[in-house]
């Protein structure tokens, strides 16, 4: 009877399989990989941002630059700079991306590293 209860990997649900395959230290943190958590992550950052904006009014900068006259100036700089960089990525990729063998070098070079290392464990 006991043998009948042993499940093979194929019998496990996706969640059970993920737990079985994960490193023991990673098991309590598997929620980090779920889409539902990643989608909600924005709210954690947003709450942090709002708190720091509020505190920024109570503790203003000691040595402000001229652009710091705008409320939440560093927040604006962080948000707009980041967005600008990411928005530049598409046209830049179009402009600068070439096939991996463009310079005539083997694009699968990563694997070259492995045989040279001599693991001790």
């Amino acid at each position, binding site marked *: 009877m006991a043998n009948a209860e042993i499940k093979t990997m194929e019998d496990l649900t996706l969640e059970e399989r993920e737990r079985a395959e994960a*490193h023991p*230290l*990673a098991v309590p943190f598997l929620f*980090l*990989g779920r889409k539902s958590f990643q989608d909600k992550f924005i709210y954690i950052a947003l709450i942090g941002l709002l708190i720091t904006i509020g505190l920024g009014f109570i503790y203003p900068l000691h040595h402000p630059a001229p652009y710091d006259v705008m409320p939440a100036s560093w927040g604006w700089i962080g948000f707009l700079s980041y967005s600008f960089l990411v928005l530049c990525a598409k046209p*830049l990729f179009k402009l*600068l991306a*070439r096939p991996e063998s463009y310079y005539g070098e083997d694009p699968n070079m990563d694997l070259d590293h492995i045989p040279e290392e*001599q693991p001790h*464990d």
Partner: protein
Amino acid sequence: MIELLLNLNPGLIIILAGMICAVLPASQIRKLLVIAAPIAGIVSISTLYTDQEVIGGIIEVGRQSFTTLRIDSLSLIWGYIFCVVGVLNGIFGLHEKCQITDSSALIYMGSAIGGVFAGDLLTLFLFWEIAAVSSVPLIWKGGERAYAAGVRYLAIHIFSGVALLAGAIIYGRANGGDFTFGHIGLNAPGGWLILLAMGIKCGFPLLHNWMQDAYPKASITGTVILSAFTTKLAIYALARGFAGEDILIYIGAAMTVFPVFFAVIENDMRRVLSYSLNNQLGYMVCGIGVGTSLAMNGVAGQVAVHIIFKSLLFMSMGAVLYRVGTIKGSELGGLFRSMPLTTVFCLVGAASIAAFPLFAAFVTKAMIISAVIKEHHYVISFILLFASAGVMEHSGIKIPYFTFFSHDSGRRVEEAPWNMLVAMGLASALCLFFAFPFGGYQFLYSLMPYAADYDPYTADHVIFQLQLLFAAIVAFALLKRLRIYPAERRAEIIDFDWTYRKLGLSVVKWLGAMWMRLNAVSANMRDRFAGSLGRKLQQVFSPAGTFSAGSPVNLPYVLTAAMLFICLIGVYIGAS
């Protein structure tokens, strides 16, 4: 001789250990040396330095004297941190039983330490070149594709050395043969050449490509070692020779900005980190340009913490490459399930470079930005803040997210080997210690070249720094939700090195082909010309020729010798 041994440059001890490693077949003893030598370096520095500038190890060669040892408040922090990271690198590379790597790593580290303790430009040049040559095997160990990158790296660094030597000779001659390495400045004779040499090594814009070319192709251990020394030696040399030069403010600002655009589209995570390294060097160069005591302290502190957290990030990517076999962002994702400890260490490195409060760069980068604002360089300070958001993008989010989180790549691998985990753990502990508000950052500040009167944990600094970082995270999360954030894609991203790797190569090939054609066409013409010239010379110089007609038989020899002598005089005048 005894004076020389008592004042031995600590770098020489490590170089000696590297030379012993080269002939030591027993890997256990070699590994012991790799870790013990930098520890011996720390002991040697602390024994030699006693709050006063130490100058010694003077060697006379002909009429030239070399000051091989100078430890002062500026070089001290570089020396210590080079030794500390040497120990970490040694632990990280314990699994790799390779004689060349061990030997190169020690000689390379020793020459970098030797360079920062060099008292004159000629000694600096010697260590500069040893560092260049000894680091190449670390690149070549990266496999077949690393060979060409290693050759390019060597050529560029040898050129940097030649520029340094030329500049040093011009500078020394103008100073009556005094080659002391102090403040040089751009108005000094040879100043621009020396700046060029240092600019190549610390990745000035358009001179930076060797870094992104060679570092990602080096061996796993090699990249970690390489990331620590070359560029920081150059930063030290700049801080010593060109502090307060305005042009460096603008060069540094440009260095902080342009790499972030490349990093955002790069797929190779070790190449992303190479761009990130370039970007961090920009803050340091900018601080050197400002040159005030606050800025110089910021530079020294930033060098110290950057060496640690950048090594940590390269170590974590090295561990991933070691286990997974690739480091392309498009092939990774979800690795936190298999490598949770590596993930945590990478996150500590990411938080440190992004300058989160309680993490390393928070207590140093702000010094540079504050110094820039205090000197009323507001546009530059804005650029540095823009670049800070960029740092958050490429190193704070992209590296950990696409490697360990993002979509699950389905790869289930083992956690990194124990030695890698120990090295990353120690580096993480240092990142936290250097930013710890109670005794941590104060210890770091006590090593700085000037008395540090700066408190990083003011309410306004903590709040506004968090504001910038949270805003960047919100932007990331929003752009991901809106599916605007670009996916990682395999590609070769061309940079300025396209000019010599593609355009330059094509031009050389074309010139070669043209030369071959011209050669074929002009072969007859050249043969006729050479034959005619030979006959004419024979008619003039031979014993039966014009010069000998009616003259003593030795006259042609005398005239030839006179001509050579005149040429020699001409060359001598031209050279002096």
